[in-house]
């Protein structure tokens, strides 16, 4: 059974109030007030100007102590990425990272097809690759983390502001730490913001978002043979507070068991949210051995995903 053997995260120590990003994001004072009041956003983590995506990934893998001395077991390195382009060609942080870590022997590739839900896709894919190979003790390393780089992600946000951080995790095909019990991913191509003539996409996405996310969560819980009440915790993606409170109501799940701690202080770190939030949950003592928890993600395109784990 696919399992996370170890998870690490890194957050830059630079915090930027979202009001300070208003000019860059083209936000009016009224829109900033809406982000504060209705979406519960306050500040975001941002790398220093001289810090690169490679620095973020290096910091996260540097905190992954369980990787030391196990490099030879790593067969795959997957970069789970929210946006297709994060660095100017020909810079490739993934291969530079592999060189730095002594993982030149591993097959390294990027998974970006499901935008910010690519993290869960990468976990599922890593587990299936390792199981298919059948090599005893083999591992996959997943990394996530990117900086706000393209103009697309600087567009005026309706309900989220991107932060910058990174995560790394080791996946095995049969580990015993955080075992994957189920994974459900649903795609709605008609909600793709880049579809030609897809005017009004943002409003349709907003109108359907809550039901689609709640639906995929319920489906994953059911596939795991559980009820939503059985979950000790939901680790969300850090888009905003308001939408999660509404999803909780729809699920009849207590909102205090959705770990929203990082939403107002970190922001939405593309595909790294899952790993950053896992570390926070662990550090805050919110997960006990045997607890069931769910990680949820949504990505433009649009993809809605949920994965249930046993800690």
């Amino acid at each position, binding site marked *: 059974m696919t399992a996370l053997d170890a998870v690490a995260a890194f957050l830059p120590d630079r915090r930027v109030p979202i009001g300070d990003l208003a000019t860059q994001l083209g936000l009016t004072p009224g829109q900033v007030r809406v982000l504060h*009041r209705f979406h519960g956003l306050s500040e975001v983590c941002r790398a220093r100007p001289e810090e690169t995506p490679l620095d973020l990934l290096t910091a996260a893998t540097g905190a992954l102590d369980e990787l030391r001395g196990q490099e030879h077991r790593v067969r795959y390195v997957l970069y789970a990425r929210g946006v297709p382009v994060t660095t100017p060609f020909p810079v490739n942080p993934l291969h530079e990272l592999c060189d730095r870590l002594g993982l030149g022997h591993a097959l390294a590739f990027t998974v970006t097809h499901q935008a910010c839900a690519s993290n869960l896709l990468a976990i599922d894919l890593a587990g299936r690759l390792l199981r298919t190979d059948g090599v005893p003790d083999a591992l996959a390393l997943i990394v996530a983390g990117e900086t706000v780089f393209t103009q697309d992600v600087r567009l005026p946000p309706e309900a989220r502001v991107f932060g910058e951080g990174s995560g790394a995790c080791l996946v095995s095909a049969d580990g015993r730490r955080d075992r994957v019990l189920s994974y459900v991913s649903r795609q709605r191509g008609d909600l793709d913001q880049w579809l030609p003539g897809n005017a009004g996409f943002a409003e349709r996405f907003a109108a359907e978002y809550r039901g689609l996310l709640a639906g995929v969560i319920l489906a994953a819980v059911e596939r795991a043979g559980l009820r939503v009440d059985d979950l000790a915790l939901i680790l969300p993606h850090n888009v905003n507070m308001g939408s999660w*409170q509404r999803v909780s109501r729809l699920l009849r799940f207590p909102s205090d068991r959705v770990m929203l701690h990082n939403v107002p202080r970190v922001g939405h770190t593309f595909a790294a949210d899952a790993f950053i939030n896992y570390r926070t949950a662990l550090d805050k003592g919110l997960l006990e051995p045997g607890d069931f928890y769910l990680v949820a993600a949504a990505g433009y395109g649009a993809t809605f995903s949920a994965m249930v784990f046993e800690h």
Partner: protein
Amino acid sequence: MEELRQRVVHSIGTALHRTLGRETTTLPEHTRLFDELGMTSSATLELLLALEEDLDIHVDVEDIERRDLESIGSLADFVAKHAIGGE
């Protein structure tokens, strides 16, 4: 509450006039903010903040749902029901 609701409806017309730059004070309550006036979710929330300022009230927004923002009438209902102060 009905008196407050009437003031909210009037204030919505005034605030929309400021935002959209066209005659809005005579719009019927069933006017749909998204479909008919082309407003975004964010713009309807900005409208709610403008109402708080205009009417000197505070609105408890914790339970707000998208359906509350659908029309002038539904927004007025929500604001009148969840207003704190301003009486």
